[in-house]
């Protein structure tokens, strides 16, 4: 009997250790997908109000088109096979999680590849992710100005270019929440959890509404 007790204890300890290791490795994995995941929220100061674009229907777009609406913005390109569909899928899931509150948000996809992303090709792209997703392209100058005010970097990955048409782009892949006044409110890093993103967006929208009504009173 006495020899059996340590054996059982050892088995229990081993089981606990194995379970803990599994749980810890699971948590580490969920929080660190290739080093690009994990939600980050920070303010960015630039105003986006003066930016102009061409949307996926060929219509010019400016500040008046977003008046009074929040924007959820992702920069990418339609030939992007891995990162952009993931980012837009996260955005769409977050919008679904927001329910009715999502109606006050205009989801926006801004192309950093205006050479290939014509209004027609963007129209065929954005519809796959969200029915209200607005695809924006423009002249290289318009896109450069937009990227600058958001602090987005992008460049053509020439080492992978083989033909003229199927080159890849390197680009920032964060998601931005912009207020109705065109001023940035929050940044989410690529790979953020959609539920957490939705909760943060809701909180930011509520605090924005609160500060706006206080300004009206004073």
């Amino acid at each position: 009997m006495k020899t059996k007790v340590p054996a059982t204890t050892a088995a229990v300890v081993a089981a606990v250790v194995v379970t803990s290791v599994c749980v810890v490795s699971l948590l580490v994995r969920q929080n660190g997908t290739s080093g690009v995941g994990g939600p980050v929220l920070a303010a960015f100061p630039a105003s986006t109000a003066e930016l102009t674009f061409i949307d996926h229907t060929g219509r010019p777009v400016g500040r008046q088109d977003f008046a009074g609406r929040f924007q959820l913005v992702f920069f990418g390109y339609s030939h992007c096979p891995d990162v952009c569909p993931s980012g837009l899928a996260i955005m769409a899931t977050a919008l679904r999680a927001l329910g009715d509150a999502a109606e006050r948000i205009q989801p926006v996809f801004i192309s950093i590849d205006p050479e290939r992303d014509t209004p027609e090709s963007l129209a065929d792209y954005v519809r796959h992710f969200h029915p209200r997703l607005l695809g924006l392209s423009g002249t290289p100058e318009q896109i450069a100005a937009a990227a600058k005010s958001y602090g987005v970097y992008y460049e053509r990955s020439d080492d992978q270019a083989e033909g003229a048409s199927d080159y890849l782009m390197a680009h920032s892949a964060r998601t931005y929440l912009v207020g109705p006044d065109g001023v940035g409110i929050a940044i989410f890093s690529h790979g953020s959890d959609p539920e957490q993103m939705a909760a943060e967006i809701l909180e930011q929208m509520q605090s924005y509404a609160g500060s706006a009504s206080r300004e009206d009173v004073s």
Partner: protein
Amino acid sequence: MSVTWCLRKSGPVSPSRRWLCLSLLLTLLPVSYARAQATTSGDVRVERVWARASAGTTANGVVYLTLSNHGERSDRLVALITSIAREAAIHETVQKNGMLSMEERGPLEIRPGESIVLEPSGLHVMLMGLKRKIEEGRSFPLTLTFERAGSIVVDVVVRGVGASGPD
């Protein structure tokens, strides 16, 4: 056996047999599906193979999958071939200077007992020069060639554009 029993037309089909056949079919479906998802050659196993449907006019696509080595020696994934694209290669999405970009990662080494997960925003099979669109619901073959385990042909299941996994 059960299939012929179910399909046999002679004689009236009792409602109980109809229900039994239906439930039999429903039970068998996920099993054969799961089998199609995991393919083994030698010590290497390939499973959870899926691709995202093409959105727009792109000539690029991706395949995600899980590789595992159940043997006692390392193996290397040395070649990828698919009829749907001009070229297939292992790429990894990496972050550099505030930008995400892709770097080639082949040949991919799988150590004994190791599993490598290819998933969105990480490692993936990059398809370049698609010959046709990757369409949701359709599948296409992908051949993975390993130094030791040889070639494995898997069926790539196509999920929606907004999918984040094979399920």
